[in-house]
């Protein structure tokens, strides 16, 4: 099973990088909304955050995942709604990758 705390730590590291590079403040809390209704990010913001998260997971957990995969893009409820849904989705991908 993927270490959820390690994933949260990696996502927060990506949030820090995103906040610094994009100048858009995101809170490091699980219920922080990201994309969609009441989301803090526009579509370019999502692109930037997703790329930062993929790199952070690779650097901190040594697992290569693709967040914007076919499942994520076709789900009725996007895994990019909030930090919590993002962490849940990453846990699934990390498990599948054997991380």
């Amino acid at each position, binding site marked *: 099973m993927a270490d959820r705390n390690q994933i949260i730590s990696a996502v927060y590291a990506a949030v820090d990088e995103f906040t610094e590079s994009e100048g858009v403040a995101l809170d490091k809390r699980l219920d922080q909304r990201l994309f969609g209704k009441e989301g803090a990010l526009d579509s370019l913001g999502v692109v*930037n955050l997703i790329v930062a998260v993929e790199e952070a997971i690779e650097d901190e957990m040594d697992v*290569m995942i693709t967040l914007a995969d076919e499942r994520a893009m076709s789900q009725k409820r996007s895994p990019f709604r909030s930090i919590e849904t993002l962490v849940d989705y990453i846990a699934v991908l990390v498990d599948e990758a054997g991380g």
Partner: protein
Amino acid sequence: MADVALITGASRGIGRYLVGRLLDDGYIVVGCSRKPPEDPPESDRYHHHLVDVTDEMAVRKLFSTIRRGHGGLDVLINNAGIAAMNHAMLTPLAQARRVVDVNLIATFLFAREAAKLMKKRRRGRIVNFATVATPLKLEGEAIYAASKGGVVTLTHVLAREFAPFGITVNAVGPTPVDTDLIRSVPADKIDALLERQAIRRMGTLADVGNVVDFYLRAESDFVTGQVLYLGGV
């Protein structure tokens, strides 16, 4: 710190030529190809990787290696390509799919991964490879010309998608250049093709290099979404 350039299809032909040219210009050059280079450059600024450009995981690992080893990427030359020169009715579907995979899908894959690295520095240059076979609508090259037509559209759209990140995306469309790619094409076909150019001669490696140089120049940061065909096509 020298700029970092990635060149696909770097083992021979135009790719191998551009490796030498960018090394001469002071770049750190990462080359990739399926087979080892026949004539590898002697430079400690050159790094070669054996990669099938259509293998997504292998390509992602290559980009991960570049990010960790060089801290980022400044230039992508999307040169890898294969040709299929058959009448459409004699073109096997597996070959058609392979041509589209290598020429179009791999160009997309490399551009996607390159943009992820380039956007951090808010600058980058992507150069794709088109061909005069597309605007000339060459018979016998249906799937090749179509795959490269896709590269033209990709170039136009990616230029817009990547512009907010300071990344330019352009393409060069060579005429026939004397490389392995066209070695199997009969001489009369080449002659007929040259007749349709404004300047009726074979292209040279330096002709292609000149266009690439132009796209890579710092002053070309306002040039994007362009496809430059050589020979006056």
